[in-house]
């Protein structure tokens, strides 16, 4: 085992209070506890926001009986779900069925290891931060597929298959939109990307932001892209056969993923923890809630897409646009590295509008003829 002294000396601590909150092991212990607590509390808060917000948008109240304004509803749900009977189908592949929630849940928590809450306040400031996020976030799909395969239910299997197809398709626009940000920031480290944002990158990368948002929503199965658990077609998709705590874990994964995507959008496009007056971590959380609220809004506004529309949207609309956006950004970085930001911003918004309009004209399903 390496001596702690050596580890402390080699650790690049860029925290605002230097060496905060102490040596290697204290740093690890502090952030491990904080991250897990952060994710669990945020999931509860976000479930509350979603249920109440969605209720309001559909002209109803939402849960309002448990505690003041229904604030204790997520707690009540958690306790209830813990005490439920655990039903496993006789024909299911037991081991896969039991392991699936663990494999789906672990990578989602791992994403938060590189998300900065403040300057240098993150578990590990990897110099390949965003690449790490891209790599690790795809692993949750394996858990989802194991759930669908292991429960030996046809609806589950169909849902899982669709999930894999959708994740595979939306991975590329997502990753290419990230490359645009990396071009402007000139670094892969999440902390450096935030430090590079004197103006939020959403202004320099409006098209990249839209692509990332749409692809991110599809990646985490949020409506309007929630084909894999479309209730009207597939009962509940991959978690049809799950009950009790294991179902709760999939529920947790769903919202933890939403928070993760919101946190990454905040870090990449909205300036992360930067902002006036309020403390940085509070800015970060406020921005996460804003992004999540937009996700809820999208969910209540758009109807669910069809599966062929889902795939075509990724391959024929988002992917070419992401590639074009990437090269336009590269040209801008190369030719006008010191141009006035406001001119670039206006140009970028104009390019975004023109590209989206043009490509929408071009975009047809099955070359205009739909074969069913």
């Amino acid at each position, binding site marked *: 085992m390496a001596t702690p002294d050596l580890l402390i000396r080699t650790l690049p601590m860029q925290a605002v209070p230097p060496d905060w909150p102490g040596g290697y092991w204290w740093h690890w212990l502090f952030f491990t506890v904080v991250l897990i607590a952060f994710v669990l509390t945020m999931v509860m808060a976000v479930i509350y926001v979603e249920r109440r917000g969605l209720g309001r948008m559909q002209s109803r109240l939402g849960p309002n009986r448990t505690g003041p304004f229904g604030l204790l509803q997520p707690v009540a749900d958690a306790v209830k779900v813990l005490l439920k*009977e655990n039903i496993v189908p006789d024909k299911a592949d037991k081991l896969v069925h039991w392991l699936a929630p663990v494999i789906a*849940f672990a990578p989602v928590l791992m994403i938060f290891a590189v998300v900065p809450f403040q300057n240098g306040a993150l578990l590990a400031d990897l110099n390949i931060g965003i690449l790490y996020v891209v790599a690790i976030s795809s692993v949750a799909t394996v858990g989802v597929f194991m759930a669908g395969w292991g429960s030996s239910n046809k609806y589950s299997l169909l849902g899982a*298959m669709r999930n*894999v197809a959708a994740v595979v*398709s939306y991975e590329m626009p997502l990753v290419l939109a990230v490359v645009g940000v990396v071009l402007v920031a000139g670094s892969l480290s999440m902390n450096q990307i935030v430090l590079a944002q004197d103006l939020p990158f959403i202004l320099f990368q409006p098209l990249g932001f839209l692509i990332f948002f749409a692809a991110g929503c599809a990646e985490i199965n949020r409506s309007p892209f929630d084909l894999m658990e479309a209730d009207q077609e597939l009962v509940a998709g991959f978690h049809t*056969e799950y009950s009790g705590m294991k179902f709760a874990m999939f529920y947790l994964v769903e919202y933890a993923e939403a928070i993760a995507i919101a946190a990454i959008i905040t870090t990449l496009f909205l300036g992360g923890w930067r902002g006036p007056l309020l403390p940085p971590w509070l800015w970060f959380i406020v921005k996460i809630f804003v992004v999540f609220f937009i996700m809820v809004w999208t969910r209540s506004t758009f109807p669910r897409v069809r599966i062929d529309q889902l*795939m075509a949207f990724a*391959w024929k609309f988002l*992917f070419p646009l992401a590639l074009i956006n990437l090269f336009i950004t590269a040209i801008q970085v*190369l030719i006008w590295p010191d141009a006035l930001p406001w001119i670039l911003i206006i140009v970028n918004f104009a390019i975004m509008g023109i590209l989206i309009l043009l490509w929408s004209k071009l975009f047809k399903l099955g070359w205009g003829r739909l074969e069913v």
Partner: protein
Amino acid sequence: MLANYGLIGLFFIIVVLFSLVMVVTPIVLRYLKIVPNNPNPIKNSIFECGMETTGKTWVQFNFHYYFYALVFLAIDVLVVFLYPWATQLRELGLFSFFVVLILVFIVLVGYIYAWKKKVLEWK
């Protein structure tokens, strides 16, 4: 830098243990008679809309997924090459831009071919 990966690795161990505890807790509670456990054949059958499931579930899947996976693989490998270029673009200059343009063009030919062959249509 290696120390950072150590942090990530330790965090990973804790996260896996945490999720395992979450899965195992109901089993422990079941032995403490807090969580009920009354299985019966109907309850443990596979969910279907009022009928019993016919045939096997684990069948061969649609060949169509395979095409998507192939195109995905080609483009994803390309994107991995784009990342180091993107971080160093300012130092590498205009020449690297054209090099990457050629690299992307090669993969793009395959993408357009797949589009023309209607591989990207979902049927």
